[in-house]
């Protein structure tokens, strides 16, 4: 199949070359026109996608009266930055924020550690039961996480970890999906490097951290960022295992704030912006890795 495709494309290339003069004629005014239409449509679509964000930021800077004015005001008379300060006063968003940072960073570091080690074993070592174990792990990806929540709740409660950070972190310090992604990447590093390192007297452990990990940097970063985003935004599990207000991560705190803030939409939008902003910033700087990770996750099929 692959060969056939290659042959096809070779054939087409040769063929296209001979007709090259004619091909250029096809970039006509019609082509240009359709490109302009494409730009217009894409701009309208992109603006529509941005409206909720713009509306959130706009409302978060308004006075209470401006927030509920009809027709809506897009740009408030005075930018009320103090809405953000007030949101921090009305609910312990500072504490929520620290909770989220703590939970996200520990579960991300933990997951990277456990999955890098496991992916190394699956990609560069051979052991009894390797294929069976890997198949079982991949099969667990088919089971919806929502099904696991009930027994996990009982496990956490039996371990006496209800209302602790550990309850929110422990179940998420390993991920089959990440092991799968990193295994694929480690396998693309040639085995010759592994043998060469062994001949030079390097241990497996040293080879993993000094050669394999640096060579797989972009895949690891992709896994890491997808994990950070997932962990930062996770809602149902932290909601279930905490009822202590001071342990809540941001999304759970924000959800509770909707009843606390009532109809103060300017505060509600300021609080939402506090939750959304860090991931948007990470996205703006590292979107290359996120998109790479998502593309790969699609390919796993």
């Amino acid at each position, binding site marked *: 199949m692959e060969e056939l495709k290659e042959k096809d494309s070779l054939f087409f290339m040769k063929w296209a070359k001979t007709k090259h003069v004619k091909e250029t004629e*096809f970039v006509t005014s019609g082509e240009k026109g359709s490109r302009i239409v494409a730009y217009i449509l894409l701009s309208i679509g992109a603006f529509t996608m941005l409206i909720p964000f713009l509306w959130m930021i706009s409302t978060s800077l308004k006075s209470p009266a401006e927030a509920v004015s009809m027709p809506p005001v897009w740009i408030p008379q005075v930018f009320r930055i103090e809405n953000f300060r007030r949101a921090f006063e009305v609910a312990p968003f500072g504490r929520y924020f620290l909770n989220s940072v703590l939970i996200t960073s520990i579960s991300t570091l933990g997951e990277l550690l456990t999955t890098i080690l496991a992916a190394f074993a699956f990609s560069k070592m051979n052991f009894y*039961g390797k294929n069976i174990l890997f198949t079982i792990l991949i099969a667990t990806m088919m089971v919806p996480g929502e099904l696991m929540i009930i027994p996990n709740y009982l496990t956490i409660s039996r371990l006496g970890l209800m209302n602790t950070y550990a309850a929110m972190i422990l179940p998420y310090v390993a991920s089959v999906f990440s092991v799968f992604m990193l295994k694929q990447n480690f396998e693309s590093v040639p085995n010759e490097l592994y043998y060469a390192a062994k001949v030079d007297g390097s241990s497996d452990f040293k080879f993993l951290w000094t050669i394999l990990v640096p060579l797989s940097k972009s895949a690891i970063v992709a896994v890491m960022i997808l994990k950070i985003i997932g962990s930062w935004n996770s809602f149902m599990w932290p909601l279930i295992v905490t009822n202590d207000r001071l342990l809540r991560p941001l999304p759970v705190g924000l959800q509770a704030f909707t009843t606390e803030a009532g109809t103060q939409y300017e505060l509600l939008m300021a609080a*939402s912006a506090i939750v959304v902003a860090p991931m948007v910033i990470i996205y703006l700087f590292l979107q290359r890795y996120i998109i790479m990770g998502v593309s790969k996750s699609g390919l796993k099929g």
Partner: protein
Amino acid sequence: MIDKPTFKSSFKAILYLFPMMLVIATFNLYPIVRSFLMSFYTDFNIFTQAVNGYGLDNFFTIFNDTSFWLAIRNTFIFVLGVVPTSIVLSLTIAILLKKVSFLSGFFRSIYFLPFVTSTVAISIVWNWIYHSRFGLMNYGLSFLGVDPIAFITDPNYSMLALVILAIWKGLGFNIILFLVGLNAINENYYSAAKIDGAKGWQRFTNITLPLLGPTMFLVSVMGVINSFKVFDEVFALFQSRPGPAGSALTVVYYIFQKFYQESQYGIAAAAGIVLFLIILVFTLLQMAFNKKFVHY
């Protein structure tokens, strides 16, 4: 791959696998087995976690529960509302993105942006957009001569509100997958078709669509699976209620209610098993399809 497995290499591998396996076994493998068992618990003491009886009662209960059927019905409506529309929109945008070169990356970034944001936070923003009196949506609709709609409190419109939010949130993910698929199509097919005088629409139906088949299938199956699991959006959009009059009660919301609010663990687990079986059908369908048509 490297060497033949030996006891020594197996022992070493176990050391590397141990931390991951400890977590996965405790929080993924064991719960899968246990939730299957739980769905057959008929007499369960929450405090001592002792099981005093097994049976099929939980399944009888949910199949006789009108709100379970309502949840199933709502979830299917949600899936049917989100997946096809999202595919048409995201494929169109992906094709337009491929057409332009200048600013293409910029546009792609914007379309993908909702994907990285907290579902809860952004659902609260949409709740405000849907506000019956001061919301942006009703303001926009007023230009079309539409009277204000109570999206959040009118059971006839709550599902529509949820579907629009979900399409907006997931569009970027589908666009990325379609771009991967489109980039894999050899440009020469298009050049050849152009030389033969095929019009834009003809090139789309005769080249793009057939060659995009596997991607299309992948996107729809992933969309269906993810849509079946909708919960956060419902919870935040309707302020910790499954919509007015249960109009946005989904399967996962039903599980959440039974388990978290009513402590009916067995019934919740049984509903979870039904959800798993529905998703399993789609996963198997996808795997069968991949084996047959996708070769990479």
